[in-house]
């Protein structure tokens, strides 16, 4: 099923003509409205006019997360604040989040892309959508919500958490489409079982799962335990939010990128050189319709592959393989982006804490669990249990306040944390995805 038949099945030449026109407009606009881009283009001796073909895009410099951070909070906005109707944010590499803005037209575009996404995942106007993505600064909840309304479906804005109540509502309201992180889908099934409810007998037809890495094995497990079709969705707030790419329910083989709004490239993360179709590398996106927060050649740090082969669903859009990793050390914990450097800066701000720490990520009962191990040195050691437990609580609270995630803090003996060539191994990810 295709929501926007015209744009999702354009002949390649027509699609590329639209892309080029929109790209040129975007470049012209960012050059004159965002000082960062003017400076970048000038330093590389390139004018918006110099881009005469889609290949010319490769002459432009990249934009990185660091650039967004340097322009915190609104420096990358291409419209005045009175045209911005929505602000979202995702976690940055240190304490400060990455802030993105939307004009009324951006919200309309995003809503349409999410309607396309939902329909690609099997949803229609007549469906009831149980939306368990978090509502708030995170783009997941509201992105799906607006898409569902645009599609004309009935949306249950349940957001995350309170799992037992979610199961009750699923049983009583009979939703047919589930939208949440894949790990939360499995948790819902488990809690339902504990409550004596057979998830497989609920009315779900399909689920659209994303915001964290998952695998083909996990898809099979979800489909088996939840008795629905599970499709993968990709997006990031810097580019739009969810709705950048999605799998079609017909093929479940790679995610269609909505190329009439985004130009995707794959580059070699070391050299920055563009790589051909079919070769694994880092995903780079340029937005070509966004007004408030356009990005030019934004390096996502996500690793994927692009394919041009036509899909049996009829879409002519290129496909990206499910994201298989990161080129940096970012972790995704229960859908929240976490950089080890963020935890480190929380610890370093507490002067009593030793610089030796380690992060251990596990998946316990389908949910990610982050354990922060901190070595006990003489400065923080106390002969009373009370003081050490207070310290653990303080670390836990500081991390929660800064990153919004719950962790387990564990004090360990000195030299417990393995050092490799003098440097400690900071992250152990035990999740088997």
């Amino acid at each position, binding site marked *: 099923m295709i929501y926007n038949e015209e744009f999702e099945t354009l002949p390649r030449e027509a699609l590329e003509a639209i892309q080029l026109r929109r790209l040129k407009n975007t470049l012209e606009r960012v050059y004159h409205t965002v000082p960062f881009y003017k400076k970048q283009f000038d330093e590389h001796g390139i004018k918006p006019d110099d881009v005469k073909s889609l290949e010319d895009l490769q002459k432009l410099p990249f934009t990185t997360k660091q650039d967004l951070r340097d322009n915190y909070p609104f420096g990358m906005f291409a419209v005045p604040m009175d045209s911005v109707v929505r602000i979202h944010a995702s976690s940055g590499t240190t304490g400060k989040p990455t802030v993105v803005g939307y004009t009324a037209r951006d919200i309309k575009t995003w809503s349409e892309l999410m309607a396309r996404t939902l329909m690609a995942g099997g949803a229609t106007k007549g469906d009831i959508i149980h939306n368990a993505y978090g509502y708030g600064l995170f783009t997941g909840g509201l992105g799906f919500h607006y898409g569902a309304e645009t599609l004309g479906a009935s949306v249950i804005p349940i957001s995350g958490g309170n799992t037992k109540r979610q199961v009750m509502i699923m049983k009583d309201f009979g939703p047919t489409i589930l939208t949440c992180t894949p790990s939360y889908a499995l948790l819902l099934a488990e809690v339902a079982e504990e409550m004596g409810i057979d998830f497989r007998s609920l009315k779900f037809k399909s689920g659209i799962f994303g915001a964290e890495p998952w695998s083909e094995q996990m898809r099979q497990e979800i489909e088996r335990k939840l008795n629905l079709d599970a499709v993968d969705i990709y997006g990031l707030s810097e580019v739009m939010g969810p709705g950048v790419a999605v799998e079609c329910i017909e093929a479940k083989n790679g995610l269609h990128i909505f190329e009439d709004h985004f130009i995707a490239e794959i580059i070699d993360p070391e050299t920055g050189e563009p790589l051909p179709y079919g070769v694994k590398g880092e995903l780079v996106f340029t937005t070509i319709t966004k007004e408030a927060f356009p990005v030019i050649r934004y390096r996502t740090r996500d690793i994927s592959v692009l394919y041009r082969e036509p899909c049996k669903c009829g879409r002519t859009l290129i496909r990206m393989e499910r994201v298989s990793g990161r080129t940096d050390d970012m972790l995704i914990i229960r859908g929240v982006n976490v950089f080890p450097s963020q935890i480190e800066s929380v610890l370093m701000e507490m002067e009593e804490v030793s610089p030796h720490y380690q992060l251990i990520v596990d998946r316990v009962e389908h949910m990610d669990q982050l354990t922060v191990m901190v070595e006990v040195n003489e400065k923080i050691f106390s002969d009373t249990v009370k003081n*050490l437990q207070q310290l653990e609580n303080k670390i836990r609270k500081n991390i929660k306040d800064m990153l919004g995630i719950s962790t387990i803090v564990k*004090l*360990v003996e000195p030299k417990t944390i393995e050092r490799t060539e003098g440097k400690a191994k900071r992250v152990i990810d035990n999740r088997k995805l």
Partner: protein
Amino acid sequence: MKVEQISVFLENKAGRLAEVTRLLGDGGVNIRALSLADTSDFGILRLIVNDNEKAKKILKENGFTVGKTNVVAIEVEDRPGGLARILDILYRAGINVEYMYAFVQQSGENAVIIFRFDNLDEAIRVLQENGVTVINGSKVYTL
């Protein structure tokens, strides 16, 4: 009046306590009293030994985190109600006991109990005013 106690941070895993006692034994340090406080993931071993400096040195060299705290050793009459009398004095004075543990060895007829207080000087003053015997550090190490 104060007694120096050393404390050692231990993870809750097999063999850590054995390691501490073995190291001290090999180094010729005699443990006079000890207590172990534990939570689900860590423990704190508190020790009164005959040679604090030596004990600290040995443990630190072997990678343990070692702390030093002043505690008080108190003579408690070895009869029913002996400890209750002392705790009552402390309670009336509003002094909170962080933790306490007993010495194996007696001081004459009396039992010896180690107390850890937040406000050590105040505790010593109150106890002495009430006729409780607070034992000298140097005496405790060699009991």
